[in-house]
């Protein structure tokens, strides 16, 4: 008896068996090891498919036959074979204790380039931007990893990742295309909009990262290899689009002070204003200057010298920087409303970062929204004593010496301002205070069905900022301006304060009613029902019970109606309907849990 899927010899395969191939067969077909196959798949972006019929069993991985033939013609495959052969040679030399040969062979390991692959995978630039999320997250992660010899994470690669991530951040900051930021437990999320594509990435917190054993770094490094190349090309294209020469030449002095990002800003800002024709010459002069500086520092590394240089260069720097930025602002008229809004958020505001504040994140965000920032340390644009500083970002229990002219705020204030797109009152974010809850800008509260309290407050503040005054936000402002405080300030006298308090109480009542109504509307209770509700509320608990009794049959009736309709549905539709219902119910349950927790928390606070 022939096997189940018998095919006469010489007859071609048909259907799914012709379209798909299992992984084992694919490796045999390509004559490569599984590791090489994996690497090829990662680099070429080939992924398993789901055939309509899994002809070799359910537990196997299937690849599209087209993809595999695509791989078979890949020049990279041959390169990898060469590499493998070369590695064997090295191994052999080492085994024979021929160190010299081994070293020489190691030095001429065959290399390959991925540029062609990138173009193949992302034929247009927008495609590349669309897939940039994972790339950025990975590069940022590796930029913060320690180099491990055993895991083959080389220092060179980590430095490359750092460079690439800084270049990317400098571009985003320069073009003011950062849109949202979020401090999560996992790290800091950023969302930028480049050429209409929303790109979100995660940077780990600036702390020593934890390396776990259950991670195969070979795979990650293969991914990283591709991502590094991709990000390099993307950066090149982006820098070109703003007329900056790409491999940026940085001020080595700043680089040495670990302020690469600032160095990049300076480079980008100066480079972007020049015409591309001039670019070359200026770059060369800059290089010269750099080399001069290098020599200087090489010859004489005394503090005095450094200080002198500092004064020489950045004396006019902040102002000049602003000037340049403004100039370039006038240049591009075709920017959208969003960008303008982002550009002007921190305009004409000076920030100063205290020593303990994570510098890189804020150094990236504040200029992205038009602010000027400095920090404690060498080579900074301005000193802490600068009188124009409006906000000083502090993250310590108490601040010793305080300048009266500036606000001392916690870092979260910057992130919240950015998400809200308004300058929030800094009172709640003062030093030593527990800041208000930090909310994710990626959540659509209305779709979720639950809006946290602080989100509402921010919404009202936004509305006031837009002068689009609703009846309630007004009250909230007064809320903030607590009459007790005002008394303390001596602005009001006692009677006025009393009046204000009275007014406030009234407004609070109104507000409460409004909110209740809103909630009711959301939960789907009709107006008549609410009327009865109100009555019951007024008349007391007895009628409440009565109302409950009334409500119960109504709900069963509704259920009956549902059942009636469900009866008549086809099985497929009924399944779908039930699935939707279940998911809706889950959502509702979640919201209910949140509300319950909140109620309890409020109760425990008051009680």
């Amino acid at each position, binding site marked *: 008896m022939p096997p189940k899927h018998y095919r006469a010899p010489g007859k071609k395969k048909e259907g799914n068996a012709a379209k798909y191939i299992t992984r084992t067969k694919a490796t045999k077909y390509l004559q490569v090891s599984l590791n090489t196959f994996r690497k090829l798949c990662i680099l070429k972006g080939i992924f398993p498919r789901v055939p309509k019929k899994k002809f070799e069993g359910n537990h196997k991985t299937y690849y599209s036959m087209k993809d595999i033939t695509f791989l078979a013609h890949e020049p990279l495959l041959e390169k990898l074979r060469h590499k493998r052969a070369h590695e064997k040679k090295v191994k052999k030399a080492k085994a024979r204790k021929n160190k010299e040969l081994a070293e020489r062979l190691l030095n001429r390991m065959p290399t390959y380039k991925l540029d062609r692959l990138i173009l193949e995978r992302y*034929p247009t630039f927008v495609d590349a931007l669309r897939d940039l999320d994972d790339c950025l997250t990975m590069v940022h992660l590796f930029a913060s990893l320690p180099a491990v010899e055993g895991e083959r994470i080389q220092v060179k690669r980590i430095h490359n990742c750092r460079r690439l991530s800084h270049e990317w951040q400098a571009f985003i900051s320069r073009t003011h295309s950062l849109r949202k930021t979020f401090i999560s437990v996992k790290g800091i999320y950023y969302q930028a909009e480049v050429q209409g594509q929303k790109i*979100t990435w995660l940077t780990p917190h600036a702390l020593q990262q934890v390396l776990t054993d259950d991670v195969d770094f070979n*795979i990650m490094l293969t991914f990283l290899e591709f991502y590094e190349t991709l990000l390099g090309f993307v950066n090149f294209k982006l820098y070109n689009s703003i007329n900056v020469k790409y491999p940026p030449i940085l001020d080595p002095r700043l680089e040495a002070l670990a302020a690469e990002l600032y160095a990049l800003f300076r480079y980008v800002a100066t480079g972007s204003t020049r015409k591309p024709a001039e670019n070359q010459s200026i770059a060369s002069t800059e290089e010269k200057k750099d080399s001069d500086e290098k020599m200087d520092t090489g010859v004489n590394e005394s503090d005095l010298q450094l200080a002198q240089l500092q004064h020489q260069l950045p004396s006019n720097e902040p102002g000049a920087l602003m000037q340049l930025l403004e100039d370039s602002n006038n240049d591009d008229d075709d920017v959208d409303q969003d960008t303008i809004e982002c550009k002007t958020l921190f305009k004409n505001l000076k920030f100063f970062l205290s020593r303990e504040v994570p510098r890189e994140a804020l150094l990236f965000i504040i200029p992205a929204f038009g602010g000027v920032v400095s920090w404690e340390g060498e080579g900074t644009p301005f000193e802490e004593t600068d009188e124009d500083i409006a906000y000083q970002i502090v993250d310590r229990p108490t601040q010793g010496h305080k300048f009266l002219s500036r606000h001392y705020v916690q870092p979260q204030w910057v992130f919240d301002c950015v998400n809200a797109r308004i300058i929030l009152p800094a009172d709640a974010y003062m030093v030593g205070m527990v800041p208000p809850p*930090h909310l994710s800008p990626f959540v659509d509260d209305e779709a979720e069905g639950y809006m946290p309290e602080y989100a509402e407050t921010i919404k009202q503040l936004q509305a006031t900022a837009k002068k689009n005054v609703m009846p309630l936000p007004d009250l909230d402002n007064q809320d903030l301006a607590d009459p007790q405080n005002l008394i303390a300030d001596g602005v009001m006298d006692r009677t006025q304060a009393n009046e204000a308090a009275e007014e406030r109480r009234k407004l609070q009542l109104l507000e409460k009613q409004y909110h209740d109504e809103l909630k009711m509307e959301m939960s789907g209770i009709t107006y008549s029902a609410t009327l009865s509700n109100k009555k019951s509320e007024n008349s007391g608990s007895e009628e409440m019970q009565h109302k409950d009794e009334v409500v119960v049959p109504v709900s069963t009736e509704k259920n009956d109606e549902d059942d009636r309709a469900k*009866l008549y549905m086809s*099985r497929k539709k009924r399944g779908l309907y039930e699935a939707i219902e279940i998911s*809706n119910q889950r959502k509702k349950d979640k919201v209910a849990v949140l509300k319950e927790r909140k109620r309890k928390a409020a109760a425990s606070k008051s009680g």
Partner: protein
Amino acid sequence: MGKEKYEESSSDEEVNSSSDVVEASSDEEVESSSDEVEASSDDVESSEDESSSDNEKVEESDSSEDEVAPRNTVGDIPLVEWHKDEEHIGYDIKGRKIKKQPRKDKLASFIEGADDPKNWRKIYDEYNDEEIELTKDEIKIIQRVISGRTPHAEVNPYEDYVDWFEYEDKGHPLSNAPEPKRRFIPSKWEQKRVANLVRKIRAGLIKVSDQNKEEEHNVYSLWTDDTDSVENKKRGGYVPAPKPKLPGHEEAYNPPVEYIPTAEEINSYELMYEEDRPKFIPRRYLNYRSVPAYDKGVKESFDRCLDQYLCPRTRKKRINIDPESLKPKLPSRKDLRPYPTTCYLEYRGHMGPVNCISVDPSGQWLASGSTDGTARVWEIETGRCLKIWEVGEVARQICWNPSPDRPILAVVLEYDVLLLNSGMGDIDIQTKMKELLHISEPGATEDAGDSKSAVTWIQHEKHDGIRMKHFKAVSSIEWHFKGDYFTTVVPSGDSKAILLHQLSKKHSETPFRKLGIPVTAVFHPSKKKFFVATKKFVHVYDLSKVEKIQKLETGVREISSISIHPGGENIIVGSKEGKMCWFDLELSTRPYKTLKVHSKDITRVTFHRTYPLFASASDDCTAYVFHSTVYSDLNQNPLIVPLEILRGHKPEHGRGVLDCKYHPRQPWLFTAGADSIIKLYCH
């Protein structure tokens, strides 16, 4: 001989040279030399002859031994120098001196040469100091040698190879075995070249650059403006990886209080299955500086990598639809009124679950049978219990005779069927009934041989009726619409499972054989048709011909009851898994519509006789009322609308509503519950 043939041949360089050499030879020796030549030529001739005859001889002629030994014996010495001044040129074999030939002067020899036509073939042998005249064959050999051919024309250099010895692969002309390494001869030239290169490298003339450091910033403008979307289309099968989920409020370092689970909730996560357990537990840090490094950061990134190259990707269409739009548009219930909606009356009195009810054709009386061993008759409008029969056993089914002038009740007990006079109607009817329900001699009316053992008709003394004793347990009874015939079903009766009885003749027969295990049997309301439901099928018989017409496939697991539409072309079938099937007999043998109505067994389905209503009762304590319009137009499918769920019965021992019946004229529904109550639902 052939010497004369070369006379006219032209003079050559050879000839000249020979003539030059010949100069010195003397006349005396000519004869002897000519002898020699003759001898040699003879020899050649003979060999020629022999060669033509045989190949082996040719080989022999090649050997030098057969040649005439040279006259001189001095060996290989420089003759010209050593014997320049001697009289002799050497010694013969006996040691005698061989005298030099007298030298001719050049002129004389030239004249001699010019006269002699054979001069060109004469050569001077310095060793023997004589002149040799070459024969024609010798000339030929010389010419062949000069032109690079074999000396003898007879020799074939390309003879067929003959395999003399046995060896492996004898049949193959060539071997494709790879060249063994021992046969490799290293190229000297290459060795020299390598040595040269090494020397140059050592001297620093050639520089070896081991590192290509310049590749670091090897980026260029990869995407030019002309990258169009045509190339995009090439990768039609490409599915981009889905983007990772964006973080919600709960992932913030400082989330709102309500997002942080309480300690109990966190503990309860431990009890969950690992898959259900939330992967991320929100925590609150009071300031940014206290946020630690995320310990799963690398792992999560790694997992994402794995997802990207290991997870199969497909495009799935997510439908974002309003669930309400999935609901079918049903006609408004208001338009389909009247139908039973609310409980109007309860008939209480039974002491156990009411198994069965039946409504009198006039619509006045309701009969019920219960597990408490009684059958009762109630007045419908008042709920008064009119009559009680103590039947002594569990009443399984009860059924009024559909004919108005025969107020007879049929009650099914375990093995017996009782035909009772209900006592309704006027005196005429009562007298008729008494006659009808009288059996003079027990068992006398049975004439069919087969059914003899199946049923015995006996007079029931206590209740003044007939007792039909079956051979096995009876499950159901059904009257013919005219009221004379009725059928009982004995599920375990094999070939006698379906019994047809005639009341007027007190006669029984078993017309149907070879059935499965029948569940219930029903008469057609107007035609001579008969429906038998087995566990999974409904068989339709023609009663006049006693043959099967149709077999309906229900597709349910176990049929519990069936009911025929008053029109007779539609049936509903209730099953024990809570499904109800509607059959249109003219449409198909498969259900037109299957409704999953109840969560538990359907105990009874029933049609209303006049209104377009039907109902189902189930053990889940509910009864469902449906609207069903059957159109006379064959092209239009019947309209089935679920109308109402009737609740009210309480479950007892896992059973709910046991029976339901419609009022014959009003849109009222009676339900009998396991809680020993009968309920009347009115519109």
